[in-house]
């Protein structure tokens, strides 16, 4: 809708950009952005405006303000991965997905905050501090929260965004941009999407180029898309998907961007409910929502059946072996020689490496490097890495079997509960939290399948809860169609934020959910 507003001249790209920049400033306490590229964004908005005046916009995304997670390379704009290792690092090139968005005329507002090197499920472990969930400051949450004691104010009650793409999710959720890029390796786009009440899409592995995305696990990473509605996700997907010669893991097939039907129909579909996703620790609230959702589909005429993915419970352990192994390998390049942080220690090359890496990486990163190297040792390789790869194939086969038996889409919860307060979250370490929080999202990365979080309802505490759909490889159209139908049914409420009201976004005021398509 904002796109048509731009076309019709009801609002100009520069105005839009300025409003978003102002909103970013007034929501700074969320700590969603690491870098705000004010100058370049305004320039891009100006260029876009010229194009609209000529009646020649580049496409639907022309002039649309977007944000990008800070583990994507952006030429001329700092890329830090929320790590000391890359503080001040200015990349000379744009990631393919960033370039594609810029080529479409999108306006890049800035780089969003994350867990250091995307390792974490809270967006709390980066060097620039944790990201705060905008819903912490929503009327919905404040109304429901009962302060435990006088001394406690809303300051200490704020909840996490989830992670690791928390900054991107918060940015979209607080209306500072219309879409954001995240990354998803074990759930890093879907998890924060669920906690922040936005749509989080993890595309099929190989559909979107990873060139320029600083890797965590090369064999599982994908760029993720965060938007306020499913239609928008489809538009962004359309502009990003397709073969990239610079990324040999992208498929060669020609990708055809699609539009979703305005009145999606699910009556001919078969929805699978995997019983293993009724995981220990799943809140009764979410369980109930999941059940209600299944009923919704049933009532619409879809076939809803229980299915089994028996190897689900091994996926976390398997992920830890494969993830840490790849991390150990991918982080080997950070030696302080060519770029990034270099320690002052210069007694010898080795001591310089050691000091640089100790100073540059946080505990989480170092912990994973050590574990990964352990698993890759000659004496351990067979028992850990090879075994984990075999288990990975079993997990992928579980999905193949289920999809092969006629199921079109799977419906599962995205998270075990709604967002927890920060002070609760930090009581457990990163590794424990990741193991707990990734459990519902991780398997899709193992199998390379597309999956999407759709905001469903508010919890008793007034915080967002989402549900996840997992689809067949490269069947994003069907997946998003189901998601869109569901989105229309549940009519997830808009966040009521003081700051947003203050900025009088009349583009959003009269709509139930703001979108740009």
């Amino acid at each position, binding site marked *: 809708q904002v796109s048509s507003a731009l076309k019709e001249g009801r609002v100009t790209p520069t105005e839009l950009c300025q409003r978003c920049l102002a909103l970013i400033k007034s929501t700074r306490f969320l700590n969603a952005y690491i870098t705000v590229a004010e100058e370049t964004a305004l320039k891009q908005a100006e260029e876009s405006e010229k194009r609209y005046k000529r009646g020649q916009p580049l496409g639907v995304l022309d002039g649309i303000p977007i944000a990008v997670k800070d583990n994507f390379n952006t030429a001329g704009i700092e890329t830090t991965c929320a790590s000391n290792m890359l503080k001040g690092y200015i*990349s000379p*090139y744009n990631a393919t997905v960033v370039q594609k968005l810029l080529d479409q005329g999108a306006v890049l507002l800035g780089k969003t905050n994350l867990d250091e090197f995307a390792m974490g499920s809270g967006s709390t472990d980066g060097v620039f501090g944790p990201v705060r969930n905008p819903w912490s400051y929503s009327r919905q949450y404040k109304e429901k929260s009962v302060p435990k004691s006088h001394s406690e104010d809303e300051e200490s009650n704020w909840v996490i965004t989830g992670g690791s793409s928390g900054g991107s999710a918060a940015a979209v959720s607080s209306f500072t941009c219309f879409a954001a890029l995240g990354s998803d390796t074990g759930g890093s786009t879907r998890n924060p999407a669920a906690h922040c009440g936005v749509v989080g899409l993890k595309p099929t592995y190989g559909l979107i180029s*990873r*060139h*320029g995305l600083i890797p965590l696990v090369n064999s599982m990473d994908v760029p993720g898309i965060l938007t306020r509605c499913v239609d928008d996700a489809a538009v962004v997907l359309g502009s990003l998907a397709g073969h990239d010669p610079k990324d040999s893991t992208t498929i060669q097939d020609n990708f055809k961007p699609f539009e979703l039907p305005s009145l999606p129909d699910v009556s001919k579909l078969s929805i699978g409910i995997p019983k293993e996703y009724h995981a220990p620790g799943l809140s009764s609230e979410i369980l109930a929502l999941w059940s209600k959702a299944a009923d919704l589909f049933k009532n619409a005429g879809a076939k809803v059946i229980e299915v089994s993915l028996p190897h689900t419970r091994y996926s976390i352990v398997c992920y830890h072996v494969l993830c840490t192994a790849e991390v150990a*390998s991918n982080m*080997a390049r950070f*030696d302080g020689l*060519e770029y990034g942080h270099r320690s002052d220690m210069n007694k010898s090359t080795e001591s310089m490496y050691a000091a640089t890496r100790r100073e540059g990486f946080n505990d989480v990163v170092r912990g994973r490097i050590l574990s990964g190297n352990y698993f890759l040792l000659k004496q351990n390789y067979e028992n850990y890495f090879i075994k984990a790869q075999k288990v990975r194939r079993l997990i992928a086969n579980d999905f193949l079997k289920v999809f092969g038996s006629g199921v079109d889409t799977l419906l599962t919860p995205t998270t075990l509960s709604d967002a927890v307060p920060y002070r609760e979250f930090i009581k457990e370490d990163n590794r424990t939290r990741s193991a707990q929080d990734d459990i519902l999202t991780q398997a899709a990365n193992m199998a390379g399948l597309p999956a999407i979080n759709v905001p469903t309802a508010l919890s008793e505490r007034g915080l967002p809860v989402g549900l996840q759909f997992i689809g067949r490889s490269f069947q994003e159209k069907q997946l998003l169609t189901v998601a869109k139908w569901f989105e229309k049914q549940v009519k997830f409420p808009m966040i009521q934020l003081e700051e947003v009201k203050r900025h009088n976004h009349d583009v959003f005021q009269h709509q139930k959910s703001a979108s740009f398509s």
Partner: protein
Amino acid sequence: AAWGCGGVWCRAWQRGAGGPSPFLRGQRAAASSARGGAVPVGKSGLAPWVPVVGLEIHAQISSNSKLFSGSQVQFAAPPNSLVSFFDASLPGTLPVLNRRCVEAAVMTGLALNCSINKKSLFDRKHYFYADLPAGYQITQQRVPIAVNGSLSYSLCIDNKMSQMVTKTVRIKQIQLEQDSGKSLHDDRRSQTLVDLNRAGVGLMEVVMEPDLCCGEEAAAAVRELQLILQTLGSSQAVMAEGQLRVDANVSVHHPGEPYGVRTEVKNINSIRFLAKAVDYEIQRQIEELENGGTILNETRAFDSKLGCTVPMRDKEGKQDYRFMPEPNLPPLILYDAKSLPANMNHQQVVNIDWIHERLPDLPSVKRAKLVEQYGILPEHSFALLNEDGLTEFFENVVKQTQMKPKKVIGWILNVLLSYLKQHSLTVKESPVSSFMMADLLNLLEKKEISSTAAKQVLAELWKGEGKSPLEIVKEKKLELIQDQKELERICQAVIDGQENE
């Protein structure tokens, strides 16, 4: 002396320059071992030794761009001027396989009689070093592109170059991998300078089975490999420019006993030094063991000035390279005529059969053809191919002269070649062209000058003053006198002269 250690006769091991005590002096080699390899003897009365030599050869692929990135491949460019983002390991960059490098490896594999693996894989080999920006090298450890081949080479078995014997060394595998950058240690300022121009250049690592037994064999095998690579064009294989690097694994054992501990010898910069290094190391190990010592499984560097091997300080302790599959490169799939899908674009794939059909004549084939076509000896054909451009020179001369090739070859190999060697010139730099040579030989063939005179003319031609052979002959009055009467008159004058004394 150019003799080999294979065959019926084995020479005694001689002392190398600046080598250890002459414990072998005066000993005659015992009969050759069952394998036909050399069996050097130790001190009199002790059991003989069998040296085992295995070579690992890295050949830089001759291509415009690097193995996984688009930056150029060029020798001696300004430091860090040929480095792409990927070569510098900038975060987020990904490898993209260079088709030409794959073709070069397939050609080489076919020329070495290997089985080409239709599916091969890439792996990461991890270690920290200043010239390895990513902290790992992309190589092919699990399933390389080619396996189980063989290389035939020839040796002279006595110093007259009149008898050549053909030997074979088995090729274990050929793998594609990245070259590292170069690091220069500036000890005075306690710093290391790193040049990444070479980082990421494509290499073919050729791993040979330990079928060799001495420096001579190693040198001959590498020379033949070098010629093959240059003929194929898959590598320029110039050792001096680092395009061909040889590491030798050397061990010794008594016949019938298990293989001894091996050392790895590196830093060998020419084929001549290869032979020296291998022979030195064999000697060193024998002496060490006979004096009751042990051989350490270590890496040693060849010091060309001293002619010996020394332990390398850098490579201490055993490294665990933590091999892991390279996740950013799918398996490399090659096709042949049978397996090529009908609708596949020919430009998109590498077809083994297509490459096989277009292989040029290998050196061994070329030599055989020369022998057959010109009636020269096998040793001559070796000498012709051994010198860059000499075969063309020879063939051009033959084309332009009536002299029989069997006679021409003598002039080329014994006269021209020695001139070139004396003045350290390549055939291309020869001041005497094939045209001039042919002219000269024609004069000789027509008996207008003698053989001695021809050599004098050649000496003049060598000065490169632009005169033709005929001009020089006239100038120096070197013509053979055909007139009978004239000859008689001269002889008579000489006799008369003698009489007067």
